[in-house]
């Protein structure tokens, strides 16, 4: 145990023993109750924007894709659309539909993955293995379409690099049917199970007012009833042609409470929404070319002297994200590039969500924003009354969380 100031930084190297990425939150406690939470990101800042500003616009596409492993489509889409906006490249209609299908498939895979993580955090590893098993199906489809399981390399300026042809439709249909059949089971596990309900109801509440003030994004704020969804507010790609509505709990007869349960509900319902959107896309997809800029050498030559600025926004699985790109005549490389991922905005929502909760609830609340920069690797606890500091490792916290579920189970009439 260390005595000292209220907060300090724990440097964690690039190599990390845990499953997820390095990230830390400092907590202040009064006994068992959390009174303050202070997130510390940047344990492994890679300087991707700096690298991008030293490369030509075409070379940045694969770099942008590698910003994140789970939402690699998100970042290549935003970068490509931001640059298309800056230099007035119009993507072909067919490619917009292909982009939308890919983005929605990624949403399914991300939400299913998140459900597994959430179940694991509260001690239901059977559910984790179940969800991660069913996630393989959509990964297989993504691989069949793009040739890759994780970094898909699909996007290019003016469209996409691979087509979704007629002969792929049966596999798409089969995958979607697979999730439709399993969906009731998923909902039964995560919304119906009394012990999961006990661990998620009224935990980690984010009020609508706080959600708006702190500029939170995605399912994190939609669980609080905030109507923010770029797919509807400022539609891109094929979304203007599709029918969709804001997924908020009150639409399904639940209260817009903003607790972990509401966020779970929103994510699960979005899986069904994604399935519907993909079906609409497959049905409406127009014929035509998949890219409007097939000649890459000519395009690169044009981009060398092009100038302009643009923004690319989308609704990532974790919420709104955006890129800003600027090209100038006297700079062959990308002149300015700013990446803003969803978790960047959701970081600020941690403090109100943790307030007043118990140590054993830390893992599930930390997971409920679906943090992209990883999980809580090490939580540092300061007891306000004694000023004594303790450090909890992820495993110890996980133990506490599992124990809480066990204690609850004994008290519940199943």
């Amino acid at each position: 145990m260390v005595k000292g100031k209220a907060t300090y930084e724990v440097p964690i190297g690039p190599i990390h023993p845990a499953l997820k990425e390095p990230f830390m939150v400092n907590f202040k406690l009064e006994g068992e109750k959390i009174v303050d939470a202070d997130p510390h990101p940047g344990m492994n800042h890679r300087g991707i924007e700096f690298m991008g500003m030293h490369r030509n616009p075409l070379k940045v596409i694969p770099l942008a894709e590698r910003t994140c492993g789970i939402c690699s489509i998100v970042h290549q889409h935003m970068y490509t659309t931001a640059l298309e906006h800056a230099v007035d490249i119009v993507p072909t209609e067919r490619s917009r539909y292909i982009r939308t299908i890919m983005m929605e498939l990624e949403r399914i895979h991300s939400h299913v993955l998140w459900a597994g993580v959430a179940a694991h955090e509260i001690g239901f590893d059977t559910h984790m293995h179940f969800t991660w098993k069913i996630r393989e199906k959509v990964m297989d489809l993504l691989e069949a379409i793009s040739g890759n399981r994780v970094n898909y390399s699909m996007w290019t300026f003016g469209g996409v690099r691979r087509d979704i042809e007629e002969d792929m439709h049966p596999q798409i249909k089969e995958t979607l049917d697979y999730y439709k059949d399993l969906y009731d089971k998923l909902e039964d596990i995560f919304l119906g199970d009394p012990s999961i309900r006990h661990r998620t109801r009224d935990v980690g509440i984010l009020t609508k007012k706080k959600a708006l003030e702190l500029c939170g994004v995605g399912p994190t704020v939609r669980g609080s009833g905030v109507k923010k969804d770029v797919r509807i507010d400022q539609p891109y790609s094929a979304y203007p042609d599709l029918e969709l509505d804001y997924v908020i709990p009150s639409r399904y007869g639940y209260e817009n409470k903003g607790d972990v349960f509401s966020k779970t509900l929103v994510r699960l319902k979005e899986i069904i929404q994604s399935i519907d959107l993909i079906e609409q896309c497959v049905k409406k997809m127009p014929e035509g070319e998949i890219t409007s800029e097939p000649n890459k050498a000519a395009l690169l030559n044009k981009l060398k002297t092009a100038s302009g600025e643009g923004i690319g926004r989308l609704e990532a699985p974790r919420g709104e994200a955006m890129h800003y790109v600027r090209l100038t005549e006297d700079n062959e490389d990308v002149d300015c590039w700013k990446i803003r991922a969803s978790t960047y905005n959701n970081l600020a929502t941690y403090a109100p969500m943790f307030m007043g909760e118990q140590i054993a609830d830390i893992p599930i609340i930390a997971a409920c924003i679906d943090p992209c920069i990883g999980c809580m690797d090490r939580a540092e606890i300061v007891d306000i009354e004694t000023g004594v500091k303790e450090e909890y490792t992820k495993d110890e916290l996980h133990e506490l969380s599992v124990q809480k579920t066990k204690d609850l189970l004994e008290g519940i009439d199943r």
Partner: protein
Amino acid sequence: MNRKELPLNLDELEEYLTEELGDDIKEFRTEEIEKGLSKKYMKLIWMRVIKDSFRDAVKAIADIQTPHLSVASGSDKGDFVELIYHFMVNYGFAEQETAINLKVHLPKDDLAIPTITDIVPGAITTEREKQEFLGIDVKDIPDDRRMWLDENYPEDKYPWRWDEDGMEDMSRHVHEKEQTFEEPVSERVKKEEKDGE
């Protein structure tokens, strides 16, 4: 502002912003980009205000609707640093959301800007980022600790600056140079070394 009924269209927004800020607006342009087969439009406003009325501009935007601040992007443009605050208004209304990209130029000899966290509390992350990546002094920021960069990274070097305060000399021909900062040594290694002695 007499609260008008949301959503405001581009003309109404232009009228409102020019009325509120007047001559303090130095550049103003609106943009509509066609999206989809059903011909819907993505709406954007790009505007630059003088530095002194930056907070007034943010207040004017905040009066429309609790603003959604996506992020503030910034870049070194030689004599000055350009910051762009990407605000979103009209969210919650299908196809009506409008991006207001608020630009402000900060001269290199006075890289300071007032905080907006009292108007938009969610701006704290991006303000902290601008401090360490561009060397901007955000006045009255409630929390000025370093957020993203390593603690061993020099205090007076800023990754997104292209002048002598940038990190160009740190990132090129690294092999020819002496190390300018110490390698981080973890507490565990220090302890092991001490025990070894």
